[in-house]
């Protein structure tokens, strides 16, 4: 099931000629992509292609040049807190869970800006609906959970902030296939409900099952935009990688 309900109009998030570097090393040499309401787009590519850098640059976590437009207006550079406040939220690679804290405390941090108790409860209910398993584990120390459960907490924590765009950096990393399937299904559901999702994945076949569009990143550049419905076989995909 691909999630591709975008209506024509301004995309929610648009990236134009985005470049990013770490010191002297140019890790991202120019990326253009967009995502709209009801779309899940995938960013594919081999190790070291710059996938994580792309997401970090969108958030403003790197030194970058180029433009990131959110709802038509430009996001300031190097301002991750500002981007998060506007609703651009990243689930970082390796999950970025706060290990010594309980699941509950992790989730509360996702809604750090919310002070109203009733609103907080509403958001909790929403996350429990997405990941019923989390609800049973609230008092558990997050660091003691399995990788899959931690990833659910990471996505749940991001959802607590009620994002307008969700960026995910390899949510399948180190997870068993079944849990990965469960998490990706939930992401598909979120996108189908209207949330724009940018999913960075190394496991291309998984991502292509959900994605409306896939961008192929290689050596810091987006080298192809793929329509998953046109990719019929592994071989065909491999051609994109090696072309």
């Amino acid at each position, binding site marked *: 099931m691909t999630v591709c309900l975008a209506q024509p109009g301004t995309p929610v998030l648009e990236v134009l000629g985005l470049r990013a570097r770490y010191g002297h090393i140019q890790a991202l040499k120019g990326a253009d992509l967009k995502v709209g309401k009801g779309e899940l787009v995938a960013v594919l590519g081999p190790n070291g292609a710059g996938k994580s850098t792309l997401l970090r640059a969108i958030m403003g976590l790197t030194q970058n040049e180029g433009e990131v437009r959110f709802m038509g207006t430009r996001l300031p550079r190097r301002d991750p807190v500002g981007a998060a406040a506007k609703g651009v939220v990243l689930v970082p690679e390796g999950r970025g869970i706060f290990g010594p804290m*309980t699941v509950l405390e992790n989730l509360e941090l996702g809604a750090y800006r919310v002070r109203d108790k009733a609103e907080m409860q509403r958001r909790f209910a929403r996350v429990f609906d997405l990941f019923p398993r989390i609800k049973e584990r609230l008092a558990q120390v997050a660091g003691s959970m399995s990788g899959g459960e931690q990833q659910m907490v990471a996505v749940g924590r991001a959802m607590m902030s009620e994002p307008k765009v969700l960026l995910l950096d390899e949510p399948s990393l180190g997870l068993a296939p079944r849990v990965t399937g469960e998490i990706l299904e939930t992401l598909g559901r979120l996108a189908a409900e209207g949330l724009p999702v940018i999913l960075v994945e190394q496991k291309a076949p998984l991502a292509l099952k959900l994605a409306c569009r896939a961008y192929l990143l290689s050596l810091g550049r987006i080298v192809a935009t793929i329509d998953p419905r046109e990719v019929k076989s592994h071989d065909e995909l491999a051609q994109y990688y090696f072309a």
Partner: protein
Amino acid sequence: MAVRSGVIGSRAASIGVWVASAAIVGYALVFGGYLSTIVAFALIYAIFVSGLNVFMGLTAQVSFGQSAFAAIGGYSSAVLTTTYGWAPLPAMLCGLVAALVAAFLIGFPTLRLKGHYLAMATLAIGLIVYEIAVEWEGVTQGYMGISGIPPLGIGSLEATSDQQILLTLSVLTVLVAIAMSRIRQSRLGRAFAAVAGSEEAASALGVNVARYKLVSFLLAAGLASISGSLFVHVVGYVSPEVFGLHMVVLAFTMIYIGGLGTVAGPIIGALIVSLLPELFRGLSESQDLAYGLTLIVILIYAPKGLVGLARTFDMWRSQ
């Protein structure tokens, strides 16, 4: 949400840490004498280390320069009460404001640094303030130091006897401990913990990392300044050596022996580390050896400090 445990949560053995701390202070209160002087210094350190604990334990930053803020507090109190005849409390508040201003000016640019850079920058601050205390003789009287500092007191109420001093310091330490436990469980504490966990993840969630690091640094500096003021009033004398690098080393020992990031840790750590040398005094020549060995043994068998040891014991018993 009713569920609240994990990081917090205290049980039998953990409560034992508090009982032990109270027993040490109680013993000193009753029997007085030399021991009460040691315990008084330990409690002053407990306040200093509690502040350092906010920055190092809760926020996971490193500062080697907290002695600078103790010096600012201590010298403000000393100079204002002796040269200008101020009462202790306004002098202490003045020192606190000065320390906070200094911490802000230092913290604002340096807290953008990470890891070793920040540690080096703070080390420099400690050395600079020490040099100022030595060289600015017109005000600080250099190595000679300032003597004749009046005892702690408000109006006509003065803490002059050992018991009065100890009681005052105990009350202050308890207040600091209550504040620490409140902070840990507050929004602020949660933000500190997020910064400690991962600066990048925290900022991606909208937590303003630079701001909370600064707040944490200011809290640590404030408590350092207060402890510096308390010290000079209790001793009645101040010289640059008081706030030298050994203060930082001692504070680090206390925080790790007690338990980094815990409320009781700085207090039990300060008490134990202060009392150990006295315990071994009878060994004369091998005193330092015994002291060092004990510290190493504690850190090997209780790497998370005495509070961590108590928690492990609780968990082991509840299984």
